[in-house]
């Protein structure tokens, strides 16, 4: 079974990755830059992201505000820089939780089989009936706005994709002689799975998780845009788009367009990197089997 087909990916990026390695380097560089900016955000931001300078409200770029200010006179550049923190932290949390949970569920289902497999596969199928955004909205309506409820919801919503992949890989992997050898030597199931099986299927799963990162970023930004994500004063790209929309209708588009661009470019960058990685991992896997 080819692992290339197992990794769920965005069809749009498939053609980009193969022929153009320079695109991968640009995107990897950009992704690294975003991470550095997010780490150093408080020192890089030229102004307090929540300080409102009403004289600068609805003005274009100036020396004081390089990317202009939004409708309440808050510096767009500073909000953009500090917004990169929630933009990366949220999806990262989703990816970590969904990967951990998905691997646990998938490996357990694939390794044990039997009733456990049917129960887990059935519940994954049920989860797939809830689109991620809908589940997040449901959670927010129950537990209130903030980052915790959406992250928990999206982690749950993305788990089936990881667990299906992990289950498939486990089923393929447990046929291999080295695992049979460990079993014959009397290693416990736990040891075999944790020390040998998971490290071997890890790269493929991480490639899927990198692709999921882009989806999670879009979903979280969408929630913030709806006002259901981050708390009001936290700078966030999705919330900035929402704030900037009224300024845009009054003819000052920068505070809405800049975060839009940031979202699109970051998503594209992380996806190209993920696709490239998935490709390399899958190629290696194909060559080995």
């Amino acid at each position: 079974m080819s692992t290339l087909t197992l990794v769920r990916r965005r069809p749009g990026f498939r053609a980009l990755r193969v022929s153009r390695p320079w695109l991968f380097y640009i995107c990897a560089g950009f992704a690294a830059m975003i991470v550095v900016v997010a780490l150093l955000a408080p020192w890089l931001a030229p102004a307090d992201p929540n300080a409102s300078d009403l004289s600068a409200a609805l003005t274009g770029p100036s020396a004081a505000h390089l990317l202009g200010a939004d409708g309440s006179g808050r510096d767009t550049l500073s909000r953009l820089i500090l917004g990169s923190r929630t933009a990366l932290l949220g999806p990262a949390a989703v990816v970590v939780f969904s990967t951990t949970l998905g691997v646990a569920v998938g490996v357990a289902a694939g390794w044990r089989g039997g009733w456990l497999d049917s129960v887990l596969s059935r519940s994954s199928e049920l989860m797939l009936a809830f689109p991620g955004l809908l589940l997040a909205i449901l959670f927010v309506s129950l537990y209130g706005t903030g980052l915790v409820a959406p992250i928990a919801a999206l982690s749950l919503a993305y788990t089936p994709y990881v667990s299906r992949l992990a289950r498939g890989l486990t089923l393929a992997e447990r046929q291999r002689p080295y695992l049979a050898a460990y079993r014959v030597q009397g290693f416990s199931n736990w040891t075999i799975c944790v020390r040998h099986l998971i490290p071997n299927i890890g790269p493929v799963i991480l490639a899927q998780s990198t692709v999921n990162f882009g989806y999670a970023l879009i979903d979280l930004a969408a929630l913030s845009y709806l006002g259901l994500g981050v708390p009001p004063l936290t700078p966030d790209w999705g919330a900035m788009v929402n704030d900037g929309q009224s300024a845009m209708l009054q003819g000052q588009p920068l505070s809405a367009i800049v975060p839009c661009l940031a979202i699109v470019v970051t998503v594209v960058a992380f996806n190209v990197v993920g696709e490239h990685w998935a490709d390399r991992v899958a190629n290696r896997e194909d060559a080995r089997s």
Partner: protein
Amino acid sequence: MSDVDGASSVASASASASASAVSSASSVDSASAVASSGAVASSGAVSSRSAVRSASAASDVWRFAARRAVELAVTLLAASFLIFSAVYLAPGRPETFLLGGRSATPQALAAIRAHYHLNDPFPVQYWRWLTQMAHGDFGTSIQYRAPVLHLLTARLPGTLMLIGMAAVLVAVLGIGAGWLSARRPGGVVDQVLLVLTSVAVGTPSFVAAIALIWVFSVRLGWFPSIGSGSGFFDMAYHLTLPALALSLYWVGTLARVTRAAMLAELSKEHVAVARSRGIPERIVLRRHVFRNAAGGIATMSGLTITGLVVSTVLVESAFGLGGIGAFLDSSVSVKDFPVVQAISLLIVTVFVAVNLVVDLTYPLLDPRVRLGARNSA
């Protein structure tokens, strides 16, 4: 999934058993026919055999449809249970939740408990809620103090029209762009479309909405940026930008899927045979390539519909349209839970129904495919 596969493989096994029984009978038949008079009679035996086989395939389709429908009904039931029990899993007691955070006197709380039957055991409450839902009684909105069903039906036409327009756009632009790319892979058109679809796939629908509003309604002033209009044509005019924003991501996705499916088909031998027979290229593409690629494209279209339904939340909020999606957003903000429950159930139902339709059309588009063995794109 394992259950489904097991069940359908059993079905196909029985089908092939009956088919082989038929074929062995008719082979006896044809043997005697060949012995008596020759080729004409044997061809008649072949056609009668295929008629028998298609009849058994038709009953197979119904059996498969029934099984799949039952399965999806179970999914729906489980989903409804999750949606209903969510209120009880939430922090705080349900009656404070139903009050929407307002404080109330103990008498009022008791009245609410009585009105919503909160003193009944949980399964009784769930059963009451479920039967009410099945009878079209979706409860009462806390925010509007009106039946949820009326609130939903008032908002449904706009949302349906938006989704319909977006679906048409996705089908026409997505398949069209994929087709254009597949005509000359690696050519200029293909390269340009590749860049365009890649941007489309990386753009969330609310970002697309902002970009479209800026260009077409603020700068150019061609389209309104808010409101949904009245009357069919005015509505279509108001919904043009929202439909574009809604469809952009899926146009890109469907274009890529169409291109990939058609390219996979183009490399097959039957296409080379068709070309070598001198069949014009556009007929080769239409009859030999696209027809065979249609199955995968249909699977993707099913996903598309569900995605469109969920994304209406964003697009309707961005364009200030009073549809179901915006209603969900505003209801979540004020914790109007009966509305949230009803809309969530509606979306999950659409998801389940679309899946059923895709499962059933797949073998129609590609008769070689065994029922239930649709490959996930």
